[in-house]
């Protein structure tokens, strides 16, 4: 259990767009970092530790993340770290750093400009390079394998999946940062052709460019915040085997375990932000976390409405915190995923006073 109470005291995100053609990553990040720090009431030199999450393959440039530091201002030299993962894992590292007492505040940011490459193929590179990646299965195809296994095992229908998409897009209508903000009804969605059966376009996330930042604080640093502090009451992440063929794709044991360790079941959950890029994954995650019908799931629209790679998981934590800070509830669950077919999962429990 955490020995120091850590709060989210700032959150900002860019609008998710299909193609950010005029700004580079640094130019995208800068106003977001400034806004998150403004909310936290902290200036650059007050920040104790900086951690970022991104993926070099999105830009096709090894060590692309170091150039993003231009947006932070790394002089005099700062305490900094990077994870080649979604920013949610950068937040976890920052949280651990704050637990050590070495710092009282942390800036966490993530960025992803997927539009420069062919994202479904870029994601193939994360697979086993000996027997799987040489076949070039793309990300949508792998999700479709999981979707069919799930549908056939549980009796869930393609219509149920369309309902998930419809509800996500409808919710996104109220979220100016989201990308897909309108939707035909489930009946109309079901009449569209398969992308990779059993998945249709609405079952899959949009390809997004975007970035986000969160500021964490503990101790006296929390008092400077202009945002109502939202406390991280539990956080944990777990990973499963790499090979798809040795896993049961219809459940998410890593989410279940991370949820238990983070203490999801210790109180009533008012809302949840789940990082489910594909419709069937939301259903798998709800079950793994034991979220009942009374929980408002993905009020932001979730990853089905905006899915900037390496950012969308961090955004789930930020969205949940911002909603609690805005009075939408007292207790929330935020989740982030990484790897093919929900291989790795992070669960975070948030509360406001």
């Amino acid at each position, binding site marked *: 259990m955490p020995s120091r109470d850590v709060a989210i005291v700032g959150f900002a995100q860019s609008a998710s767009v299909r193609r950010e*053609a005029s700004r580079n990553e640094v130019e995208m990040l800068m106003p977001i970092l400034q806004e998150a720090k403004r909310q936290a009431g902290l200036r650059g030199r007050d920040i104790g530790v900086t951690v970022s999450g991104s993926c070099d393959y999105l830009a096709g440039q090894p060590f692309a993340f170091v150039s993003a530091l231009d947006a932070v201002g790394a002089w005099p030299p700062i305490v900094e770290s990077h994870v080649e993962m979604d920013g949610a894992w950068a937040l976890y590292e920052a949280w651990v750093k704050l637990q050590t007492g070495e710092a009282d505040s942390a800036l966490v940011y993530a960025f992803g400009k997927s539009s420069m490459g062919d994202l479904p193929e870029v994601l193939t590179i994360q697979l086993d390079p000996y*027997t799987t990646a040489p*076949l070039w299965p793309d990300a949508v195809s792998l999700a*479709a*394998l999981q979707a069919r296994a799930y549908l056939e095992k549980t009796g869930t229908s393609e219509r149920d999946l369309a309902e998930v998409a419809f509800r996500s897009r409808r919710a996104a209508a109220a979220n100016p940062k989201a990308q897909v903000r309108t939707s035909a009804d489930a009946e109309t969605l079901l009449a569209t052709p398969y992308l990779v*059966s059993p998945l249709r376009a609405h079952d899959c996330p949009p390809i997004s460019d975007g970035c986000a930042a969160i500021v964490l604080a503990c101790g006296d640093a929390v008092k400077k915040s202009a945002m109502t502090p939202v406390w991280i009451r539990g956080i944990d992440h777990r990973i499963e085997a790499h090979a798809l*063929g*040795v896993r049961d*794709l219809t459940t998410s044991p890593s989410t279940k375990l991370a949820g238990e360790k983070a203490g999801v079941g210790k109180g009533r959950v008012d809302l949840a932000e789940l990082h489910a890029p594909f419709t069937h994954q939301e259903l798998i995650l709800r079950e793994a976390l034991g979220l009942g019908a009374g929980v408002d799931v993905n009020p932001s629209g979730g990853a089905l409405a905006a899915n900037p790679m390496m950012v969308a998981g961090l955004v789930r934590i930020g969205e949940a915190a911002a909603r609690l800070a805005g009075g939408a509830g007292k207790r929330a669950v935020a989740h982030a995923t990484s790897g093919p077919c929900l291989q790795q999962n992070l669960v975070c429990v948030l509360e406001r006073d």
Partner: protein
Amino acid sequence: MNRMAETASGRLTAAHVLEYPYRRSVGPVMGAFFTGLTERRLLGVRARDGRVLVPPVEYDPESGESIGEMIEVGPGGVVTTWAWVEKPRAKHPLDRPFAWALVRLDGAGSAMLHAVDAGSAAAMRTGMRVRPRWKAEPEGNIHDIVCFEPERA
């Protein structure tokens, strides 16, 4: 990277190609698997719990102990889940509509990913039997299996 060129919108863009000609050492376990492919044999490895894992792994997934007893499996197997690709990508193994499938080879306790050439989605179902279609001259890599195809009754 190539030179920047101005697009119709007035924005400068440039094409960039990332290309790595990786040559990978495979070690004794994967080496045996790939050598088996050259002989049109499919080899797995026995895990501590008795399951045969295909493709094989060097270490037991639960205990982490080194394992290496090779077991021949297949060549036929069962589709445990599948996805139909109506419009194949250029890099996909087949250039006509096909299914991705997880195939549990006879005698194996895990499934392997590959393509199934079934002609149409209507010919696919979970639980169907498939067998490998071999390349004429195997070279010792995963492409020695061109794809799987439905086993005729």
